[in-house]
Protein backbone atom coordinates (compact mmCIF):
# COMPACT_ATOMS: atom_id res chain seq x y z
CA UNK A 1 0.00 0.00 0.00
CA UNK A 2 1.28 3.47 -0.89
CA UNK A 3 2.02 5.75 2.11
CA UNK A 4 -0.69 8.23 1.03
CA UNK A 5 -3.28 5.46 0.99
CA UNK A 6 -2.38 4.56 4.55
CA UNK A 7 -2.70 8.13 5.82
CA UNK A 8 -6.01 8.49 3.95
CA UNK A 9 -7.21 5.34 5.67
CA UNK A 10 -6.17 6.82 9.02
CA UNK A 11 -8.15 9.97 8.32
CA UNK A 12 -11.21 7.90 7.44
CA UNK A 13 -11.10 5.35 10.26
CA UNK A 14 -8.33 5.82 12.80
CA UNK A 15 -8.71 2.44 14.55
CA UNK A 16 -8.82 0.28 11.44
CA UNK A 17 -6.20 2.42 9.73
CA UNK A 18 -3.85 2.21 12.66
CA UNK A 19 -4.02 -1.58 12.69
CA UNK A 20 -2.74 -1.41 9.12
CA UNK A 21 -0.01 1.03 10.18
CA UNK A 22 1.26 -1.44 12.77
CA UNK A 23 0.99 -4.32 10.30
CA UNK A 24 2.95 -2.39 7.67
CA UNK A 25 5.63 -0.81 9.87
CA UNK A 26 6.15 -3.37 12.65
CA UNK A 27 9.15 -5.21 11.20
CA UNK A 28 11.05 -2.15 10.05
CA UNK A 29 10.40 -0.40 13.35
CA UNK A 30 11.43 -3.47 15.33
CA UNK A 31 14.66 -3.62 13.32
CA UNK A 32 15.30 0.04 14.07
CA UNK A 33 14.68 -0.55 17.78
CA UNK A 34 16.90 -3.62 17.67
CA UNK A 35 19.70 -1.53 16.22
CA UNK A 36 19.25 1.09 18.92
CA UNK A 37 18.89 -1.30 21.89
CA UNK A 38 21.02 -4.22 20.78
CA UNK A 39 18.70 -6.92 22.14
CA UNK A 40 15.28 -8.16 21.03
CA UNK A 41 13.64 -7.88 24.44
CA UNK A 42 14.22 -4.13 24.78
CA UNK A 43 13.60 -3.73 21.07
CA UNK A 44 10.11 -5.17 21.39
CA UNK A 45 9.33 -2.89 24.33
CA UNK A 46 10.58 0.14 22.44
CA UNK A 47 8.70 -0.76 19.25
CA UNK A 48 5.47 -1.38 21.16
CA UNK A 49 5.84 1.81 23.18
CA UNK A 50 6.44 3.71 19.95
CA UNK A 51 3.17 2.49 18.43
CA UNK A 52 1.22 3.21 21.61
CA UNK A 53 2.52 6.80 21.66
CA UNK A 54 1.87 7.17 17.95
CA UNK A 55 -1.72 6.01 18.36
CA UNK A 56 -2.35 8.43 21.23
CA UNK A 57 -0.86 11.29 19.23
CA UNK A 58 -2.89 10.43 16.13
CA UNK A 59 -6.11 10.63 18.12
CA UNK A 60 -5.44 14.34 18.59
CA UNK A 61 -4.25 15.00 15.03
CA UNK A 62 -6.22 17.44 12.89
CA UNK A 63 -7.13 15.80 9.53
CA UNK A 64 -5.05 18.24 7.46
CA UNK A 65 -1.91 17.25 9.38
CA UNK A 66 -2.70 13.57 8.80
CA UNK A 67 -2.60 14.05 5.05
CA UNK A 68 0.92 15.39 5.03
CA UNK A 69 2.21 12.95 7.64
CA UNK A 70 5.31 10.98 6.59
CA UNK A 71 4.67 7.86 8.64
CA UNK A 72 8.07 6.16 8.42
CA UNK A 73 9.96 9.31 9.41
CA UNK A 74 7.46 10.23 12.10
CA UNK A 75 7.48 6.76 13.70
CA UNK A 76 11.31 6.77 13.61
CA UNK A 77 11.37 10.08 15.42
CA UNK A 78 9.08 8.73 18.15
CA UNK A 79 11.18 5.57 18.48
CA UNK A 80 14.36 7.63 18.82
CA UNK A 81 12.74 9.65 21.62
CA UNK A 82 11.45 6.52 23.36
CA UNK A 83 14.99 5.11 23.44
CA UNK A 84 16.51 8.40 24.56
CA UNK A 85 14.01 8.64 27.42
CA UNK A 86 14.62 5.05 28.49
CA UNK A 87 18.37 5.55 28.51
CA UNK A 88 18.02 8.80 30.42
CA UNK A 89 15.55 7.53 33.01
CA UNK A 90 16.49 3.98 33.91
CA UNK A 91 18.95 2.26 31.62
CA UNK A 92 22.23 4.13 31.59
CA UNK A 93 24.27 1.04 30.69
CA UNK A 94 22.01 -0.05 27.87
CA UNK A 95 24.43 0.38 25.00
CA UNK A 96 27.26 -1.28 26.89
CA UNK A 97 25.21 -4.39 27.60
CA UNK A 98 24.11 -4.63 24.02
CA UNK A 99 25.31 -7.29 21.64
CA UNK A 100 25.82 -10.02 24.21
CA UNK A 101 22.19 -11.02 24.41
CA UNK A 102 20.86 -10.53 20.91
CA UNK A 103 19.29 -13.97 20.83
CA UNK A 104 16.06 -14.99 19.21
CA UNK A 105 16.09 -12.53 16.35
CA UNK A 106 14.43 -13.93 13.28
CA UNK A 107 15.91 -13.09 9.93
CA UNK A 108 14.18 -14.37 6.83
CA UNK A 109 16.24 -16.99 5.06
CA UNK A 110 16.66 -15.24 1.78
CA UNK A 111 20.02 -16.71 0.89
CA UNK A 112 20.59 -20.31 -0.03
CA UNK A 113 22.53 -22.74 2.15
CA UNK A 114 22.37 -23.38 5.88
CA UNK A 115 25.84 -21.92 6.51
CA UNK A 116 24.94 -18.62 4.89
CA UNK A 117 21.73 -18.44 6.95
CA UNK A 118 23.56 -19.06 10.21
CA UNK A 119 26.18 -16.54 9.19
CA UNK A 120 23.50 -13.97 8.40
CA UNK A 121 21.88 -14.41 11.79
CA UNK A 122 25.11 -14.30 13.69
CA UNK A 123 26.10 -11.27 11.61
CA UNK A 124 22.92 -9.44 12.52
CA UNK A 125 23.35 -10.20 16.19
CA UNK A 126 26.90 -8.98 16.25
CA UNK A 127 26.10 -6.00 14.11
CA UNK A 128 23.11 -5.01 16.26
CA UNK A 129 25.50 -5.00 19.18
CA UNK A 130 28.12 -2.98 17.31
CA UNK A 131 25.55 -0.45 16.15
CA UNK A 132 24.17 -0.11 19.66
CA UNK A 133 27.70 0.64 20.90
CA UNK A 134 28.19 3.58 18.49
CA UNK A 135 27.94 7.14 19.84
CA UNK A 136 24.27 8.07 19.95
CA UNK A 137 24.29 10.65 17.15
CA UNK A 138 26.02 8.24 14.74
CA UNK A 139 23.87 5.29 15.78
CA UNK A 140 20.62 7.17 15.19
CA UNK A 141 21.75 8.58 11.88
CA UNK A 142 23.03 5.24 10.54
CA UNK A 143 19.91 3.34 11.60
CA UNK A 144 17.40 5.86 10.30
CA UNK A 145 19.25 6.06 6.99
CA UNK A 146 20.24 2.42 6.44
CA UNK A 147 17.63 0.41 8.33
CA UNK A 148 14.56 2.63 8.27
CA UNK A 149 15.69 3.74 4.78
CA UNK A 150 14.89 7.41 5.18
CA UNK A 151 16.51 10.00 2.92
CA UNK A 152 19.12 12.32 4.46
CA UNK A 153 16.52 15.07 4.47
CA UNK A 154 14.01 12.85 6.27
CA UNK A 155 16.60 11.78 8.85
CA UNK A 156 17.50 15.43 9.39
CA UNK A 157 13.83 16.24 9.93
CA UNK A 158 13.28 13.33 12.31
CA UNK A 159 16.35 14.12 14.41
CA UNK A 160 16.05 17.89 14.23
CA UNK A 161 19.53 18.24 12.72
CA UNK A 162 20.92 19.78 9.56
CA UNK A 163 21.29 17.54 6.53
CA UNK A 164 25.05 18.14 6.53
CA UNK A 165 25.34 16.94 10.12
CA UNK A 166 23.31 13.84 9.29
CA UNK A 167 25.51 13.04 6.28
CA UNK A 168 28.61 13.38 8.36
CA UNK A 169 27.18 11.25 11.21
CA UNK A 170 26.13 8.49 8.81
CA UNK A 171 29.56 8.57 7.18
CA UNK A 172 31.47 8.45 10.46
CA UNK A 173 29.15 5.81 11.87
CA UNK A 174 29.64 3.51 8.91
CA UNK A 175 33.39 4.04 9.08
CA UNK A 176 33.44 3.07 12.74
CA UNK A 177 31.35 0.00 12.02
CA UNK A 178 33.69 -1.10 9.23
CA UNK A 179 36.66 -0.70 11.53
CA UNK A 180 35.01 -2.73 14.28
CA UNK A 181 33.56 -5.34 11.98
CA UNK A 182 36.81 -6.85 10.78
CA UNK A 183 35.48 -10.26 11.72
CA UNK A 184 32.82 -9.91 9.06
CA UNK A 185 35.34 -9.72 6.21
CA UNK A 186 37.26 -12.68 7.59
CA UNK A 187 34.30 -14.96 6.96
CA UNK A 188 33.27 -13.49 3.62
Amino acid at each position, binding site marked *: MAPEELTQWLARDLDAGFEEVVRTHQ*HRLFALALGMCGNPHDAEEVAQDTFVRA*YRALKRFPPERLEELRLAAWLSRIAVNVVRNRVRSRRPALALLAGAEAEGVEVPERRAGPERTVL*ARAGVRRLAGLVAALPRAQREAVLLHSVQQLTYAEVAGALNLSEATVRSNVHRGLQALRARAGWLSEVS
Partner: protein
Amino acid sequence: MNMVEEALHELSAARAPDGFLERTLRACGLRDSYAKVATPIGDYFVAWRGNRVSAVSRADKGLESFLNWFASEVGRSLEPAEGVPALIRRALLATRGQGLSYDFGQLTEFEQAVLRKTLEIPRGEVRSYGWVAREIGRPGAVRAVGTALRHNPIPLLIPCHRVVRGDGELGNYAGGHPELKKDILKLEGLDLGWLEDLARRHKRFLGSRTTHVFCQPTCSHARRIALDNRVEFSAEQEARAAGYRPCRDCRPVAA
Protein backbone atom coordinates in the same frame (compact mmCIF):
# COMPACT_ATOMS: atom_id res chain seq x y z
CA MET B 1 28.30 -4.31 -1.44
CA ASN B 2 30.66 -4.39 1.52
CA MET B 3 29.94 -6.56 4.56
CA VAL B 4 28.81 -3.75 6.87
CA GLU B 5 26.19 -2.51 4.44
CA GLU B 6 25.13 -6.08 3.79
CA ALA B 7 24.73 -6.78 7.49
CA LEU B 8 22.82 -3.51 7.95
CA HIS B 9 20.61 -4.67 5.15
CA GLU B 10 20.10 -7.95 7.00
CA LEU B 11 19.33 -6.06 10.20
CA SER B 12 16.67 -4.07 8.38
CA ALA B 13 15.10 -7.37 7.37
CA ALA B 14 14.69 -8.50 11.00
CA ARG B 15 11.14 -9.58 11.79
CA ALA B 16 9.14 -8.45 14.80
CA PRO B 17 8.52 -11.43 17.12
CA ASP B 18 5.44 -13.63 16.73
CA GLY B 19 2.34 -12.04 18.22
CA PHE B 20 3.86 -8.55 18.20
CA LEU B 21 0.97 -7.11 16.16
CA GLU B 22 -1.70 -8.47 18.51
CA ARG B 23 0.18 -7.46 21.67
CA THR B 24 0.73 -3.96 20.32
CA LEU B 25 -2.88 -3.47 19.24
CA ARG B 26 -4.01 -4.65 22.67
CA ALA B 27 -1.62 -2.18 24.33
CA CYS B 28 -3.13 0.57 22.17
CA GLY B 29 -6.59 -0.44 23.34
CA LEU B 30 -7.56 -1.68 19.89
CA ARG B 31 -8.35 -5.27 20.85
CA ASP B 32 -11.19 -6.60 22.94
CA SER B 33 -10.35 -8.92 25.79
CA TYR B 34 -12.85 -10.95 27.73
CA ALA B 35 -13.01 -12.82 31.03
CA LYS B 36 -15.60 -14.32 33.33
CA VAL B 37 -16.70 -12.69 36.58
CA ALA B 38 -18.71 -14.34 39.36
CA THR B 39 -21.34 -11.99 40.86
CA PRO B 40 -24.02 -12.48 43.55
CA ILE B 41 -26.57 -13.02 40.75
CA GLY B 42 -24.49 -15.42 38.66
CA ASP B 43 -21.52 -15.60 36.31
CA TYR B 44 -21.02 -12.97 33.64
CA PHE B 45 -18.72 -12.55 30.67
CA VAL B 46 -17.31 -9.08 30.31
CA ALA B 47 -15.45 -7.71 27.28
CA TRP B 48 -13.36 -4.54 27.18
CA ARG B 49 -11.05 -2.68 24.86
CA GLY B 50 -8.38 -0.49 26.44
CA ASN B 51 -10.17 1.01 29.44
CA ARG B 52 -13.59 0.84 27.79
CA VAL B 53 -16.17 -1.84 28.50
CA SER B 54 -17.64 -3.18 25.27
CA ALA B 55 -19.99 -5.94 26.46
CA VAL B 56 -21.45 -7.71 29.47
CA SER B 57 -23.39 -10.94 29.13
CA ARG B 58 -24.71 -13.67 31.39
CA ALA B 59 -22.53 -16.73 31.16
CA ASP B 60 -25.31 -19.29 31.44
CA LYS B 61 -25.56 -19.84 27.68
CA GLY B 62 -21.87 -20.70 27.46
CA LEU B 63 -18.74 -19.18 25.99
CA GLU B 64 -19.43 -20.13 22.38
CA SER B 65 -22.75 -18.34 22.40
CA PHE B 66 -21.13 -15.22 23.92
CA LEU B 67 -18.33 -15.18 21.33
CA ASN B 68 -20.81 -15.58 18.47
CA TRP B 69 -23.09 -12.90 19.84
CA PHE B 70 -20.15 -10.50 20.26
CA ALA B 71 -18.88 -11.15 16.75
CA SER B 72 -22.29 -10.50 15.21
CA GLU B 73 -23.36 -7.54 17.42
CA VAL B 74 -20.04 -5.75 17.88
CA GLY B 75 -18.28 -7.06 14.78
CA ARG B 76 -14.86 -7.65 16.36
CA SER B 77 -13.02 -10.70 17.62
CA LEU B 78 -12.27 -11.41 21.27
CA GLU B 79 -9.24 -12.72 23.08
CA PRO B 80 -9.31 -14.37 26.50
CA ALA B 81 -7.64 -12.44 29.33
CA GLU B 82 -6.35 -13.68 32.68
CA GLY B 83 -8.81 -11.57 34.63
CA VAL B 84 -11.00 -8.50 34.49
CA PRO B 85 -9.39 -5.12 35.34
CA ALA B 86 -10.11 -4.34 39.01
CA LEU B 87 -12.08 -1.18 38.25
CA ILE B 88 -14.48 -3.02 35.94
CA ARG B 89 -14.79 -5.97 38.32
CA ARG B 90 -15.65 -3.75 41.29
CA ALA B 91 -18.22 -1.86 39.22
CA LEU B 92 -19.88 -5.12 38.14
CA LEU B 93 -20.06 -6.53 41.66
CA ALA B 94 -21.61 -3.30 42.92
CA THR B 95 -23.77 -2.73 39.78
CA ARG B 96 -22.30 0.77 39.66
CA GLY B 97 -21.32 1.58 36.10
CA GLN B 98 -21.19 5.36 36.32
CA GLY B 99 -17.44 5.85 36.70
CA LEU B 100 -16.46 3.62 33.75
CA SER B 101 -15.89 4.36 30.07
CA TYR B 102 -17.79 2.47 27.39
CA ASP B 103 -17.22 1.42 23.83
CA PHE B 104 -20.58 1.65 22.10
CA GLY B 105 -19.12 0.44 18.82
CA GLN B 106 -21.73 0.31 16.10
CA LEU B 107 -24.75 1.50 18.09
CA THR B 108 -26.79 4.32 16.56
CA GLU B 109 -26.74 7.80 18.10
CA PHE B 110 -30.25 7.25 19.43
CA GLU B 111 -29.27 3.96 21.09
CA GLN B 112 -26.20 5.58 22.60
CA ALA B 113 -28.27 8.48 23.95
CA VAL B 114 -30.68 6.00 25.57
CA LEU B 115 -27.81 4.08 27.20
CA ARG B 116 -26.05 7.22 28.43
CA LYS B 117 -29.26 8.53 29.96
CA THR B 118 -29.93 5.16 31.59
CA LEU B 119 -26.45 5.28 33.08
CA GLU B 120 -27.51 8.40 35.02
CA ILE B 121 -30.24 6.57 36.97
CA PRO B 122 -28.87 6.14 40.51
CA ARG B 123 -28.59 2.74 42.14
CA GLY B 124 -31.72 1.84 44.11
CA GLU B 125 -33.97 4.02 41.93
CA VAL B 126 -36.08 3.35 38.85
CA ARG B 127 -37.37 5.48 35.98
CA SER B 128 -39.91 4.80 33.26
CA TYR B 129 -39.30 4.26 29.53
CA GLY B 130 -41.24 7.47 28.99
CA TRP B 131 -38.90 9.36 31.31
CA VAL B 132 -35.83 8.23 29.32
CA ALA B 133 -37.53 9.21 26.04
CA ARG B 134 -38.41 12.64 27.40
CA GLU B 135 -34.98 13.23 28.91
CA ILE B 136 -33.18 12.59 25.62
CA GLY B 137 -35.52 14.97 23.82
CA ARG B 138 -37.53 12.27 22.02
CA PRO B 139 -40.76 12.15 24.06
CA GLY B 140 -42.59 10.27 21.31
CA ALA B 141 -40.03 7.48 21.06
CA VAL B 142 -41.05 5.45 24.12
CA ARG B 143 -41.25 2.16 22.24
CA ALA B 144 -37.91 2.78 20.54
CA VAL B 145 -36.38 3.38 23.97
CA GLY B 146 -37.75 -0.01 25.03
CA THR B 147 -36.21 -1.64 21.96
CA ALA B 148 -32.84 0.03 22.53
CA LEU B 149 -32.78 -1.12 26.15
CA ARG B 150 -33.82 -4.64 25.22
CA HIS B 151 -30.65 -4.76 23.08
CA ASN B 152 -28.40 -3.14 25.67
CA PRO B 153 -25.02 -4.86 25.09
CA ILE B 154 -23.75 -3.88 28.55
CA PRO B 155 -26.45 -4.85 31.08
CA LEU B 156 -25.75 -4.53 34.83
CA LEU B 157 -23.23 -1.72 34.22
CA ILE B 158 -25.60 0.26 31.99
CA PRO B 159 -28.53 -0.30 34.35
CA CYS B 160 -31.39 -1.06 31.97
CA HIS B 161 -32.89 -3.00 34.89
CA ARG B 162 -33.67 0.42 36.42
CA VAL B 163 -35.99 1.34 33.56
CA VAL B 164 -39.50 0.01 34.17
CA ARG B 165 -42.97 0.42 32.76
CA GLY B 166 -45.04 3.40 33.84
CA ASP B 167 -47.83 1.15 35.17
CA GLY B 168 -45.73 -0.47 37.86
CA GLU B 169 -44.90 -3.60 35.85
CA LEU B 170 -41.20 -4.17 35.39
CA GLY B 171 -41.18 -4.86 31.63
CA ASN B 172 -38.58 -6.63 29.48
CA TYR B 173 -35.01 -7.21 30.47
CA ALA B 174 -31.97 -7.35 28.16
CA GLY B 175 -29.84 -9.08 30.77
CA GLY B 176 -31.94 -12.25 30.86
CA HIS B 177 -35.23 -13.46 32.35
CA PRO B 178 -37.62 -10.74 33.71
CA GLU B 179 -37.35 -12.39 37.14
CA LEU B 180 -33.68 -11.46 37.09
CA LYS B 181 -34.61 -7.79 36.73
CA LYS B 182 -36.56 -8.17 39.98
CA ASP B 183 -33.63 -9.87 41.72
CA ILE B 184 -31.18 -7.14 40.75
CA LEU B 185 -33.53 -4.35 41.85
CA LYS B 186 -34.05 -6.11 45.19
CA LEU B 187 -30.29 -6.47 45.54
CA GLU B 188 -30.04 -2.72 45.02
CA GLY B 189 -32.39 -2.19 47.93
CA LEU B 190 -35.60 -1.40 46.11
CA ASP B 191 -38.87 -2.29 47.86
CA LEU B 192 -40.81 -3.77 44.96
CA GLY B 193 -43.92 -4.59 47.00
CA TRP B 194 -44.22 -0.96 48.04
CA LEU B 195 -43.77 0.23 44.42
CA GLU B 196 -46.43 -2.19 43.19
CA ASP B 197 -48.79 -1.00 45.89
CA LEU B 198 -48.33 2.65 44.82
CA ALA B 199 -48.90 1.68 41.17
CA ARG B 200 -52.06 -0.25 42.06
CA ARG B 201 -53.40 2.86 43.79
CA HIS B 202 -52.30 5.00 40.79
CA LYS B 203 -50.02 7.13 42.97
CA ARG B 204 -47.22 8.40 40.74
CA PHE B 205 -45.55 11.11 42.83
CA LEU B 206 -44.54 11.72 46.41
CA GLY B 207 -44.41 15.23 47.86
CA SER B 208 -42.91 16.72 51.00
CA ARG B 209 -45.08 19.03 53.12
CA THR B 210 -41.95 20.81 54.38
CA THR B 211 -40.25 21.55 51.03
CA HIS B 212 -43.33 21.48 48.76
CA VAL B 213 -41.35 19.51 46.19
CA PHE B 214 -42.73 16.41 44.47
CA CYS B 215 -40.63 13.48 43.25
CA GLN B 216 -40.74 10.12 41.57
CA PRO B 217 -41.30 7.57 44.36
CA THR B 218 -37.79 6.07 44.27
CA CYS B 219 -35.92 9.41 44.13
CA SER B 220 -33.48 9.64 47.02
CA HIS B 221 -35.14 12.90 48.13
CA ALA B 222 -38.57 11.24 48.23
CA ARG B 223 -37.26 8.41 50.34
CA ARG B 224 -35.93 10.83 52.93
CA ILE B 225 -39.38 12.40 53.52
CA ALA B 226 -40.66 11.51 57.00
CA LEU B 227 -43.90 9.50 56.87
CA ASP B 228 -45.85 12.31 58.58
CA ASN B 229 -44.76 14.83 55.95
CA ARG B 230 -45.32 12.63 52.92
CA VAL B 231 -48.18 13.25 50.47
CA GLU B 232 -49.08 11.08 47.49
CA PHE B 233 -50.21 12.50 44.14
CA SER B 234 -51.76 10.76 41.14
CA ALA B 235 -51.14 13.51 38.59
CA GLU B 236 -48.97 16.53 37.93
CA GLN B 237 -51.94 18.95 38.01
CA GLU B 238 -52.94 17.66 41.42
CA ALA B 239 -49.46 18.31 42.81
CA ARG B 240 -49.18 21.75 41.20
CA ALA B 241 -52.67 22.74 42.35
CA ALA B 242 -51.58 21.91 45.89
CA GLY B 243 -48.62 24.30 45.48
CA TYR B 244 -45.88 21.73 44.85
CA ARG B 245 -43.05 22.07 42.30
CA PRO B 246 -41.23 19.17 40.57
CA CYS B 247 -37.88 17.91 41.95
CA ARG B 248 -34.87 19.11 39.97
CA ASP B 249 -33.01 15.83 40.43
CA CYS B 250 -35.54 13.18 39.41
CA ARG B 251 -37.46 15.53 37.06
CA PRO B 252 -40.82 13.69 37.43
CA VAL B 253 -42.64 15.70 34.71
CA ALA B 254 -41.86 17.42 31.42
CA ALA B 255 -40.18 20.80 31.90
